[in-house]
């Protein structure tokens, strides 16, 4: 999350935050209170995401103070909001709603989002609009107080558990592509919304296709102005990349390098000088990437957001791919086996679970999902380095007149 929300004038200290949490826990005993009630109360007390504004689950203090609150709650054995079940809601929907939602929308959505009562998913990509997201074809046509939406979305994770989808749809095909988009919260349980599993090359179906057939969305669920969808979506995407690239503080040997070094240490008979050299390089690269993530985290915490989030996602994808490729080779005969090809719908996405073959295959997606590495390089080149854009044939042409 690049936006630290509204800062209150007077900032609390970490100790004061801890004090507030302890006071809250005195009044709300997690051992006796129902989980949902406890989480609702925590949100209402501004101790959910402390950097969010008062009234929306926070206290308007710097993001860096969140750790103090979380630690106190964890120490008391309080239930958390199971953030791994709602990654898109917490990582992408919340900052977007915070930045562009109306007061009514923030009040209506943020609490159930944070507590995990309502899961969110993202309806952006389409079969014909992947890298060229702004070229998407899903149409939303105004009909009284609501919008009729038809189209096909793809690569939608957790859609089968979600109550809400962040939907980007074309509301005006008569203007250039970036200008004709609007942004909605789509009720995933509404008629006309059909979710089908999309099987990927690992054998699993982590993702879905979502077919929208004249689905109705109240205008009250539009986020931002009509035609402003592209700008709203940028907030979502930026937060997605930060989330994927990993801006959390992690210990050494986290992530993909962990199973690789574990295999190395436990199976001396697999070692060769060539593999040793490769592992040392990968270990070093992983550690450098971790330090870069830590530096990014420190900058964010200090209110100095930089463009390094895009770098983190690029490096994350490359390293996951290289390390898992190495691990298959290190495993040798075992690397030729695969645990299970059966089609499954995992509850959460786990990039590092299962065997080396799974990790290798799953990691191929890391440079595609959430913005391909190619698109990220374009973004870095143009927005960070200021290199000139390519000649564009579709920029000033009404979307409907662009050949496709």
């Amino acid at each position, binding site marked *: 999350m690049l936006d630290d929300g509204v800062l209150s004038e007077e900032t609390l200290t970490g100790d004061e935050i801890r004090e507030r949490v302890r006071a809250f826990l005195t009044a709300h005993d997690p051992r006796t209170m129902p989980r949902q009630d406890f989480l609702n109360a925590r949100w209402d007390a501004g101790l959910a995401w402390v950097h969010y504004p008062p009234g929306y689950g926070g206290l308007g203090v710097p993001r860096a103070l969140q750790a103090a609150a979380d630690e106190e709650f964890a120490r008391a054995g309080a239930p958390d909001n199971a953030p791994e079940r709602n990654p898109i809601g917490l990582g992408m929907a919340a900052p977007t709603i915070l930045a562009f939602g109306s007061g009514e929308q923030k009040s209506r959505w943020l609490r159930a989002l944070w507590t995990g009562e309502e899961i969110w998913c993202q309806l952006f*990509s389409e*079969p014909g*609009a*992947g*890298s*060229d997201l702004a*070229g998407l074809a899903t149409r939303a046509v105004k009909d009284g107080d609501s919008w009729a939406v038809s189209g096909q979305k*793809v*690569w939608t994770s957790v859609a089968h558990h979600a109550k809400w989808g962040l939907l980007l749809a074309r509301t005006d095909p008569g203007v250039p592509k970036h200008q004709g988009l609007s942004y909605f919260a789509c009720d995933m349980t509404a008629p006309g919304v059909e979710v089908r599993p*999309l*099987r*990927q*090359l690992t*054998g699993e179906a982590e993702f879905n296709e979502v077919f929208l057939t004249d689905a109705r969305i109240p205008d009250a669920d539009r986020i931002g102005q009509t035609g402003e969808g592209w700008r709203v979506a940028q907030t979502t995407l930026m937060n997605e990349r930060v989330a994927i690239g990993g801006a959390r503080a992690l210990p050494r040997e986290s992530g993909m390098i962990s199973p690789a070094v574990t295999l190395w240490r436990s199976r001396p008979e697999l070692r*060769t*000088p*060539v*593999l040793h050299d*490769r592992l040392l390089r990968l270990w070093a690269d992983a550690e450098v990437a971790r330090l870069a993530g830590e530096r990014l985290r420190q900058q964010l915490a200090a209110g100095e957001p930089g463009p390094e989030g895009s770098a983190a996602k690029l490096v994350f994808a490359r390293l996951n*791919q290289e390390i898992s*490729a190495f691990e*298959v*080779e290190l495993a*040798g*005969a*075992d*690397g*030729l*086996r*695969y*645990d*299970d*090809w059966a089609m499954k719908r995992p509850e959460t996405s786990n990039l590092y679970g299962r065997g080396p*073959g799974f990790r*290798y*295959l799953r990691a*191929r*997606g890391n*440079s*595609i999902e959430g913005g*391909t*590495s*190619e698109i990220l*390089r374009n973004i870095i080149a143009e927005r960070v380095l200021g290199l000139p854009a*390519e000649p*564009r*044939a*579709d920029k000033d*042409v009404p979307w409907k007149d*662009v*050949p*496709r």
Partner: protein
Amino acid sequence: MSADLRYSDTERALASALADLLAAQSGWKDVLARTEAGESYDAGLWRAVASGVGCAGLLIPEPLGGAGASYRELATAAEQFGAFVAPVPYLGSAAVATTALLSAAESTVNTPAGSGASADLLRRMAGGGTTAALAAEFAASAGSGFPGSLRLAALRPGDESAGVARLRGTVRSAADALPADVLLVPADGVPQGLYLVDGTAPGVHRVPVSSLDMTRQLCDITLDDAPGRLIVSGEAAARAVEDALAAGAAILAAEQLGLAQRCLDMTVGYVKERRQFARPVGSFQAIKHRLADLWVSVTQARAVSRYAAACLASGDEDTPVAVALAKAYCSEVATHAAEECVQLHGGIGFTWEHPAHLYLKRAKAASVAFGTAGAHRSALASLASIAPP
């Protein structure tokens, strides 16, 4: 260097006939459907390539009913099998087992040419009606020593007079052994040797393995006092296994070349058609440069694959260098090509319903099979006199 690195007219004709047959009978949807149905090998396709194009007996001499061709032609065929990720046991049977049997037949000098157990088996394999497989880990490479996980066991009454030995032990992750009629079993003991074991004999257990390469399903082989017949022993047996693994590596390198070329072709075709930003994706320079680099790599891989096949065909003394170079280089090119194929297809390339993953899985598994690129390059240290520290 006198090796001809081009394709002969015969080779071109063979490649063309095989490509036509595979395109007609083994499109990627057939291959994918077969993996889902659990019928990983396509027996009908094998009969067709054996009888229609003669692929089963390319290495087998004409007197034994084979085509009397060479590793050059077999490598040419392998390129097509790679291009179609064809689920047939050509590699295990027509390359590896055939090489082991030819090597064994050559070593048994006191047997008249064309007779003996090896020759008998080769005669049955020439038409594809019988297939054989070496009972060895698919990851084993030439130079890693005689496999030691299978051993001679105590004889049973009557074995001696029947000329039968008893074999025990387990080999994991063997390739093309699942559909094989006959197993060639390297067994430790006295004598250390290569034994023929009938796939239907009592005590032969094969368990299919869920394999990274879904189009070349491996199996674990357990022999439980299974009866075997010695075909060659001692140094000659070790040489037969070495020759077989070296030939396997070289032919697999050719398969990797064919796979890489196909991945390149598929990707080039896709990026010409796929439009984003009102332009074909293939008009973006970064994509063009990556595909140009891939084409360069494939070009290089073709030269070294041809060289390895030519060296094997002529028994050139440079064969160990050529095989190590080919397997090292083609392993990396094929994996890279398949990875680029997935990446440049974007989301669709990451789905189950697109052929890219069939190639990715075969490429990655093949890069481990018969020795990784790193292992083969390490072998060059002594072959090329580049001494380690």
